[in-house]
């Protein structure tokens, strides 16, 4: 286990370095941030002064090593636009995205697993057909369109739910979040649904496939022959086996939800990191973009690590390693 953790840690560092290099070069290639930052009527002297103050006059490799050296000391640079530490900008907005993503994930699981179970246990029944057709919509309708439709129906026509912003935030155990006020919750519902519809369909299908694959296995029949109740068979025997693929996919998807909450955040003007990223890319605010990606990559690595640990909890074959 220790060896595993150490190896994983070294791999993660390599991934972080490579990401940093690629993003650094990529943003450099897109354009010169000085063009965006400096007023067109500035004199050449003013211009040179700003460029020098941002360190943009140095060659790329020198800029990178300055950045890397500072990064090792915990400083990921200052935003060109806001003139504040980029990491602070990100952590300021990360909670909003986490709150949105986790709510979306919980929504996908709480709804998706039961629907998948119902579907898988009664294949080809009318209920199954309805659920499956619904999940096709979830898969195939583009996220931005779904978002706009949600706003049109629930905000514009029905007027039930607000369509923009995070609403009022409450504080609980020192965490400020929209989850703790009624107003915040009403603001959260639409974006969370929008973000989770695709994952919901995925969870439904994974669960259904798992049930369909596991139910005909001998151990299920043997459990029946033992006189074990059907409920226990589904929720213990079958469910524990389905959890293995489910955890894998959810782990991967949680990372992508965090990273690609961009679309949802843009539609619902949700002040999360996705929106920050888009704005920063537009303004070529390199320190923020690099810091954002490093944070996201770290989150991915962390989630994958948690998934591996969960595996060993769910599947004894992983924990104990092979047959004797």
């Amino acid at each position: 286990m220790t060896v595993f953790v150490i190896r994983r840690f070294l791999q993660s560092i390599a991934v972080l370095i490579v990401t940093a290099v690629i993003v650094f070069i990529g943003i450099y290639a897109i354009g010169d941030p000085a063009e965006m930052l400096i007023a067109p009527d500035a004199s050449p002297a003013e211009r040179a002064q700003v460029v020098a103050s941002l360190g943009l006059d140095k060659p790329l490799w020198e800029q990178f090593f300055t950045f890397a050296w500072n990064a090792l000391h915990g400083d990921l640079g200052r935003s060109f636009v806001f003139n504040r530490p980029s990491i602070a900008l990100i952590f300021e907005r990360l909670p909003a995205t986490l709150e949105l993503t986790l709510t979306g994930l919980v929504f996908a699981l709480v709804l998706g697993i039961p629907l998948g179970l119902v579907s898988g246990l009664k294949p080809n029944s009318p209920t199954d057909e309805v659920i499956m057709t619904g999940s096709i919509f979830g898969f195939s309708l583009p996220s931005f369109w779904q978002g706009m439709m949600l706003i049109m129906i629930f905000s514009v026509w029905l007027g039930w739910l607000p369509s923009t912003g995070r609403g009022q935030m409450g504080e609980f155990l020192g965490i400020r979040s929209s989850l703790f006020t009624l107003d915040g919750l009403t603001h959260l519902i639409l974006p969370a649904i929008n973000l989770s519809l695709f994952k919901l369909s995925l969870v439904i299908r994974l669960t259904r496939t798992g049930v369909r694959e596991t139910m005909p296995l001998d151990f299920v029949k043997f459990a029946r022959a033992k006189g074990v109740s059907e409920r226990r068979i589904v929720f213990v025997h079958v469910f524990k086996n389905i959890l293995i693929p489910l955890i894998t996919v959810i782990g991967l998807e949680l990372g992508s939800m965090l990273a690609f909450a961009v679309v949802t955040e843009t539609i619902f003007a949700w002040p999360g990191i996705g929106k920050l990223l888009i704005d920063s890319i537009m303004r070529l605010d390199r320190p923020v973009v690099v810091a954002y990606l490093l944070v996201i990559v770290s989150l991915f690595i962390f989630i994958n690590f948690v998934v591996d640990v969960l595996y060993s909890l769910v599947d004894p074959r992983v924990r104990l390693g092979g047959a004797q």
Partner: protein
Amino acid sequence: MTPVLEVKNLSTHFMTRRGVLKAVDDVSFTVGEREIVGLVGESGSGKSITGFSILGLVDPPGRVVSGQILFNGEDLLTKSPTAMRAIRGKRIAMIFQDPMMTLNPVLSVATQMIETVQAHDRVSRAEARARSRDALGLVGIPSPEERLDSYPHQFSGGMRQRVAIAIALLHRPDLIIADEPTTALDVTIQSQILFEIKRLAAEFGMALIWISHDLGVVAALADRIMVMYAGRIVEAGQVDGVLTAPRHPYTSGLLSAVPAAVPRGEPLRPIPGFAPSPLSRPSGCAFRDRCARATDLCATEPMLEIAAGREFRCFHPHLWSAA
């Protein structure tokens, strides 16, 4: 002696898209108290489905379409699902063919045994665990207390089958249905398991239905033997009688295909042809296309004849001087 199990005219059909598949067709037999009955036949002859029909575990599109299954005088086919669940594992237990597949890979042996105890008896976890441990000891698993917390993948095939047998024994059932439990094991383990099951059945006074395609195994174990072909029992009787003086040509064909029955150096004598597809069985005797003794008469359905404790379905049975 009242029979433990009395199966009367059981038919189990599968309603498939390509037609009705008669997996079990008008099968009748009885199993007496403490009796060991061998049910033999080739793959697809309906022997496993007979076993599943008794437990009410036939999966759709299969369905028991007619007949009676009297267990201690009560018809199992009229029981509610809840009542059947109370019987399964408690009064009738089953052991499956492949021990690699019968235990749930993600649940510990203790979990899988304790749930079996608690499915039928209201006892504490500790009590259920103690009973599970004793059952493991009974089937010859060393240091059962530690092994309880192991997972199936930590056991060998033979040991897993012992665990499955221990689970079947937990409630000391009146009847155990063993569906080829030694087929997937290697020969040395096979004979150990056979010996254990025979000992335990005798010790606890359990009746046993042993489903197998291995005549040698059945000869060593069973009191009576039933030979199934194409969904029907074609011959039944005491093991010694059926194996030394078979009346049905299919039984004699099976016997002469066994390696030990043929002198060394001579080729084995397989039965010519293949078993008919269960979707398109010929009318009359299903074996007639492969039978050297068949005549035009065989196109009509042979009735079950009972002679000297032997039952068979054939118009042209072998005649033996003793019979």
